[in-house]
């Protein structure tokens, strides 16, 4: 058994999140592996094909920036490829022992592949709770800046997509069950200002994840291993972020969370 994730990888994207559904350059801090998972298969599809002498490689990287495993290469006239090697374990994102954890995927190219974007999908099995699907919200391409107004972030993707109009960020959820637990990561911590991050359901806070004034600058993630809320197929979800007081600059917010069907 297991689940699958699909993603779009833009041309030029090098380091990008594993769980977000869109990947562009420069967001290797987003959507890390939230628990140990077993990746059993990875596919790449591109149309048109890379072309003679060109290729796209995808691999997983750990916190220290080292290769976890080179899984698959799409080259030449092929429009699709699937990994043929055995399964690989991706250890959970780990700030304490960076070399042990998995944080992001990396695309490398040879020559000049033709397609403007490639698409990849992974077949994975969560090793902590094999019935719990994993997914992510947010990336590093759009930052929250100084504000005293709620801003909203869409599910599974955030690029150029953070505004004060919540309706434009709500996404319909297709299955009834339980959402959670959650792991949040942010790229900058205010030393004096206050930041509040909430997970929203149907326009109301379902779970207020973080409220932190004056945290140490090195505090960049928080895990809520026992936090859950119920969800019904058709509910709308998104993130809310509110920053008040003196803030130090723009920040990106990412969340990876689980879902267990009823």
């Amino acid at each position, binding site marked *: 058994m297991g689940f699958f994730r*699909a993603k779009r990888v833009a041309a030029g994207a090098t380091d990008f999140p594993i769980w977000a559904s869109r990947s562009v350059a420069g967001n290797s801090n987003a959507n890390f592996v939230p628990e140990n998972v*077993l990746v*059993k298969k990875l596919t790449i599809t591109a*149309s048109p094909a890379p072309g003679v002498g060109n290729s796209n490689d995808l691999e997983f990287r750990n916190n220290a920036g080292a290769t976890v495993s080179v899984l698959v290469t799409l080259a030449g006239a092929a429009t699709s490829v699937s990994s043929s090697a055995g399964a690989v374990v991706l250890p959970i994102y780990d700030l304490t022992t960076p070399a042990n954890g998995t944080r992001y995927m990396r695309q490398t190219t040879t020559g000049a592949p033709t397609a403007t974007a490639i698409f990849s999908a992974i077949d994975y099995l969560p090793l902590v709770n094999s019935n719990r699907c994993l997914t992510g919200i947010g990336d590093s391409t759009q930052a929250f800046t100084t504000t005293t107004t709620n801003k909203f972030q*869409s599910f599974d993707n955030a690029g150029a997509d953070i505004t004060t109009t919540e309706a434009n960020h709500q*996404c319909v959820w297709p299955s009834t069950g339980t959402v959670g637990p959650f792991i949040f990561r942010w790229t900058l911590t205010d030393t004096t200002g206050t930041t509040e991050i909430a997970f929203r359901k149907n326009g109301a806070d379902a779970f207020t994840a973080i409220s932190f004034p004056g945290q140490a600058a090195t505090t960049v993630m928080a895990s809520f291993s026992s936090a859950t809320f119920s969800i019904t197929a058709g509910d709308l979800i998104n993130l809310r972020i509110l920053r008040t007081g003196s803030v130090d600059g723009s920040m990106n917010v990412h969340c990876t969370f689980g879902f267990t069907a009823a």
Partner: protein
Amino acid sequence: MSFPTAEPFPRIRDLIDPKRWAERLIDKLEMHARSFALLSRTQTFVNGNNNNIDLDGLMLVRITGPTATFTITGIARGVQGQVMMIHNSTSQIMTIAHLSVSSGAANQIVCPDATDFTTTAFPSSHLLYYDNNQWQVMGCPCASGAAANVTGVLMMHAQGNAGTAVATATPFMPLASTATGVATLGPTQIRIPRTITIVNLYVRLRVALAGGGTMTIAVNNGSTVGTGSTTGAPAVTISSGGSTGNSNGNAYLVLEDAFLAFEASFTGGTTTATVQNIAFSYTATDD
């Protein structure tokens, strides 16, 4: 092996003695062989690779030691027909490597599906036997106690705050975030890495549909890049003025290595739509 069936061989005084001894032995076997103890021991393993492990003829091995992921690449001194149970008592991921050259050829292990066998639950126990000069792992790497089917979700969301614009001439979208629909199917297809059954498809538009007609978003299923069909696949139809809909749970099988995309179509006076997100739930069965 500890086997409580000892019945001393009798002094043979007549031809009946061996027969009586055999009968007593059979009685004891019938009584005691229903439950017996394996020769067992706790064995310390190390993080990383454990090569050519010498388990000294043990039949039950309780593994301790590792504080990080570890791998068994081979077990020494296997004997034809030997059976061994290994029990991972640690909280670390254990992998049994398939035919790893890190161990000698006669010590290597054959795993189901010729794929490294990784524990999916802690603690866990696994049965191996020695045959044809190799160890064989029995069973599949399923998580103990897990359901035969699991339900997951796939979310596709508009890229950018304007939503994803689709139109009659640009109807195709991938199963991942995208800025606009495109005219041809190929550049939107994603190769699905496992067999799934789509349960329910949901569509949410950024703004209510206009034009007086309808829009349908369906799953496009193809076997090669550049070809596909929506026939029989889940679809959501939204009428002018509406903004959400779902496919009402008509199950639809998608085979491993199929190429999927979303495809919009229009009727009446409606020729464009702005998509907020598309999502579906699916069930995945055993590999």
